[in-house]
């Protein structure tokens, strides 16, 4: 027993030590190994998922590629680690991944207790309900006594419980592990309603045997700011990831796209010149090449391009910009000035 008492602290110390080593300067670590290890979803269409050729696609994947473009000048120096909802934060804490771009909702407790730092939100989501038309329900407030299909281990599960409690309604949750099975159970009639992030509902409805038989209820019952995360305490790395996301937003606001960026190099607008690194300063401040923002937009695109390519109205998900429009168009996407 006494042996054990001596061994355990030693092991714990070894853990902390190795974690400490890994935390010293993520930027240097990343540069030394030559690639960024990004934690992604792996099974979420539109956000992080390999296509039929095994190429990673999605909004979160493009966010990781933007960081890679900023650091290496090459968007393809990313290796992806697919993570489940349960393993994602541990993987970041233990140093297995350098950045977590896995549709994680920023919350106070995650930001503090878990030793993470969330950066600029790359997608504003919210939770909604999908119901069959024949249920005759027009509002989520009429769902008293309903069985609700929901994914476990997410904020979704908690939100729906809170919502029903606040509105003094009863519900029976049906908890199913994967999105595909969840949709299947719902369409087979195992539950009256399916709840998930609004970004998913349109896609789920699209796979129904008869999509017109289902409606999405108007209520959005939660705030889900999905943001990339990094380990707490490495401020330089946090700045880089943060401004990689912001650069895509700023580029859209400045009207710079991956197509017109080379013409924009001749622009006389001082904001554009600063953004593209023609007037130096931003790159040096972040510890990056002056052309970091140019590389992001050239290789990955601005936020609008990334959004439309992965989740926009022309994709299966058919999502409107909504809250994710620029602030100038009534959305929430707002970048501080790049100077």
């Amino acid at each position: 027993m006494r042996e054990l008492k001596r061994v355990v602290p030693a092991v714990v110390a070894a853990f902390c030590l190795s974690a400490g080593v890994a935390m010293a300067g993520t930027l240097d670590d990343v540069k030394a190994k030559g690639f960024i290890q990004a934690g992604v979803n792996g099974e979420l269409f539109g956000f992080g998922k390999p296509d039929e050729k095994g190429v990673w696609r999605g909004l979160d994947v493009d966010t990781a590629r933007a960081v890679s473009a900023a650091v290496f000048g090459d968007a393809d120096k990313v290796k992806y680690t697919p993570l489940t909802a349960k393993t994602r934060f541990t993987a970041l804490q233990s140093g297995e991944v350098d950045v977590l771009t896995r549709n994680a909702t920023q919350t106070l407790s995650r930001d503090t207790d878990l030793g993470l730092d969330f950066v600029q939100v790359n997608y504003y989501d919210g939770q909604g309900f999908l119901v069959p038309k024949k249920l005759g329900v027009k509002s989520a407030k009429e769902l008293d006594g309903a069985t609700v299909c929901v994914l476990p281990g997410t904020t979704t599960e908690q939100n729906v419980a809170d919502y029903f409690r606040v509105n003094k309604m009863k519900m029976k949750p049906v908890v199913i592990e994967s999105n595909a099975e969840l949709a299947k159970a719902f369409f087979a009639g195992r539950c009256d309603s399916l709840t998930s992030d609004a970004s998913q509902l349109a896609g789920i409805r699209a796979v129904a045997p008869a999509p017109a038989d289902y409606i999405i209820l108007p209520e959005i019952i939660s705030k889900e700011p999905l943001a990339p995360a990094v380990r707490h305490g490495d401020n330089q790395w946090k700045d880089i990831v943060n401004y990689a996301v912001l650069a895509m937003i700023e580029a859209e606001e400045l009207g710079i796209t991956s197509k017109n960026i080379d013409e924009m190099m001749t622009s006389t607008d001082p904001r554009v010149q600063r953004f593209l690194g023609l007037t130096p300063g931003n790159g040096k401040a972040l510890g990056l090449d002056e052309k970091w923002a140019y590389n992001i937009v050239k290789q990955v695109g601005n936020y609008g391009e990334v959004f439309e390519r992965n989740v926009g109205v022309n994709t299966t998900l058919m999502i409107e910009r909504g809250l994710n429009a620029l602030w100038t168009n009534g959305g929430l996407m707002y970048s501080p000035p790049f100077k």
Partner: protein
Amino acid sequence: MTNIGIIGWMKANLFNGWFNSALTLLVAYLLWLSVPPLVDWALVNSSWLPSGEQCTAGEGACWSVVTANIRFILFGFYPHDLQWRPLLAVVILIALLFYSQNRNHWRKSLFYAWMVGLFTMGLLLKGGLFGFASVESNLWGGLPLTLLLSVFGLTAAYPVGVILALGRQSEMPIIKSFCVVYIELIRGVPLISLLFMSSVVFPLFLPEGLVINKILRAQVAIILFTAAYIAEVVRGGLQGVNKGQYEAADSLGLNYLQTMRLIILPQALKIVIPPSVSILISAFKDTSLVVIIALYDLLKTTQTTLSDPKWMGYSAEAYIFVALIYFVCCFFMSNYSRRLERELDTGL
């Protein structure tokens, strides 16, 4: 009434007494209820084209989910243009396995054939030599990964298990206690936790900069795990061998190694063929647990495909396809074990 021909056979086997007749009719009715709709669903009304456009309209199975994604399901992230390489590697592996099942082929040349075969497979998968482009092992996935983990896991685990079983029978206290502790420790934890240890905890103990391949770590975990179970099965066989056999070997003046190799193990291993094959089959299926350490085996690539909204509704078809692959492999193993039992049967 005739007693020969089809009618005679039916009378003897299907309508032998009122109870059996009733059972026959009931089974026939159930088959009639279930088989035609199944055939309709799986074959007649099904759609096979990769575009999957008829799937939403058709009543039948949508095999398009498999045909459209077959390359990702089978080979995962392996670069698209190079996928002939893992395909060839799998073909070589299967050919070698088929050739080796006949015991008449167990000669030295077979050993060399395996050496060459293994080297070629390694070269095809990894590349980096003789002008083959190098492919990192974190891109390996799908069927090659499943076969790799199981074939090598099982082949390596078996001898380790035999040695552990012998160690547990040993009279030398250190070896004996080591084997007992090892076996009980490994059997006391689930495979998932071993995989987690190998992928998350183990790297923390390595010196800075030393990285051991993730697949290799999973492979070792599977070997360690399966070996412990094999060891217990083999121990059962060792104890099942008549004590007289040990004494006979002693009186012939054989030493320990000779006794084991010539007298005891051949008999013991023969007795335990059925339970060891059970373990091998379940270990083969357990390899799908590697998904939790983010290795994309056959099952995981299929699940990933199903998360695309376009294919989300057709999980039954995709899972049936994967189940067929698993079934073929497991059926092959159990079939082979029965054949071995028959061939080795000495009537004792």
